[in-house]
């Protein structure tokens, strides 16, 4: 662990702290809104520990609070989390044991996370938008490993502590709406989606989906309108069409939510002609 610390730069620590602060705000709002909406205290707490994916937690609780079935909540959360699959592929080299990556020493001495097979199991749980984005911003493997683990572990701690604090606040303050906390959910979801919306076809699909969902809300049982929004994909999905490699973006883009915003976050990478996956999937 000490070797990991030494490869961690002060600027990285500062950026990670900022992201943790931002996510803590969201986590607190999540916890408060969930209990104020009538859920038991352990629901947001258990979700944060076990699911540990903010967007899907907010989505699932949102569906349930709107009166939707748990099945619809799980479905919405699961679809949101499909993005973790390409994320996991993108950072596989820093999540797994060091010896898989090449000659010993390349990734730092044994003793840093990654020395044991079970670190994969632990590391996989802290694959998030933020930890992946931080990892992919680093050039060499040792720093990528340090960035991934620093961000992932810090975020896990910050998120869970914040959710507990939010739950406590929410059970004291009954009327969280007076503080506008109900507006934080949609705000977070939009902030998460913004980087992907740079693409016109994605934007069209998202706009169509949103229109479908809002239009169906008065008539369908809660939870279903959001799933029906996936119909908006039809506007973007043309299987017969050849993909032009130069224009394609790989799924875990670097700018994809380093929360859109951390002061140090790099500008959105230009859509270069770089072949898919070469940069990150070796």
């Amino acid at each position, binding site marked *: 662990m000490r070797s990991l610390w030494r490869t961690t730069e002060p600027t990285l620590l500062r950026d990670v702290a900022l992201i943790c602060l*931002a*996510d803590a*705000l*969201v986590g607190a*709002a999540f916890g408060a809104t969930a209990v104020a909406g009538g859920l038991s205290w352990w629901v947001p707490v258990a*979700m944060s520990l*076990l*699911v540990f994916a903010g967007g*899907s937690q907010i*989505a*699932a*609780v949102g569906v*349930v609070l*709107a009166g939707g079935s*748990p099945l619809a*909540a*799980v479905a919405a959360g*699961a*679809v*949101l989390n499909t*993005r973790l*699959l390409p994320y996991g*592929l*993108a950072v596989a*080299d820093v*999540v797994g044991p060091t010896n898989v990556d090449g000659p010993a020493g390349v990734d730092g001495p044994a003793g840093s996370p990654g020395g044991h097979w079970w670190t*994969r199991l632990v*590391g*996989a749980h802290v694959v998030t938008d933020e930890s992946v984005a931080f990892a992919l911003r680093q050039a060499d493997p040792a720093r990528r490993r340090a960035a991934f683990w620093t961000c992932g572990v810090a975020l896990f701690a910050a998120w869970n502590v914040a959710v507990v604090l939010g739950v406590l606040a929410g059970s004291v303050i009954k009327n969280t709406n*007076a503080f*506008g906390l109900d*507006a*934080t959910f*949609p*705000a*977070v*979801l*939009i*902030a998460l*989606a*913004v980087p992907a919306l740079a693409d016109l076809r*994605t934007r069209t699909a*998202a706009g169509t989906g*949103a229109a479908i*969902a809002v239009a169906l*809300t*008065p008539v369908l049982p*809660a939870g279903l*309108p959001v799933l029906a*929004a996936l119909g908006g*994909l039809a506007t973007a999905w043309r299987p017969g069409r050849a*993909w032009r490699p130069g224009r394609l*973006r*790989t*799924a875990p883009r670097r700018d994809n939510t380093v*929360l*859109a*915003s951390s002061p140090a976050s790099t500008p959105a990478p230009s859509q270069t002609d770089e072949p*898919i*996956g070469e940069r990150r999937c070796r």
Partner: protein
Amino acid sequence: MPLIAIVALAGITYGFRLVGPLCRDRVTLPPAAQRLFTDAATVLLIALAATSALTAGHGFAGWARPAGVLVAAILAARRAPFPVIVLAAACVTALLRLAGLP
């Protein structure tokens, strides 16, 4: 929300996370699939944002919440820092309610 639903979502989520680290040499996602995943997640995020901003139950949520979310969306599009986006949404909505808007 029953525990089984939380455990199910947790299991599915962990499964997605684990595929890469466990089988990175065997799995490569076709670009089309990657793209579909990203698009699907984005469509869901925006649809959820729209419905949770505009509706409560089967009806309209009132003006204060959509107004706060609109301000947040503008800030997000301008790449404002994340804490600013979250606080702006809450503050605008809270102030409008304080002013008597539903």
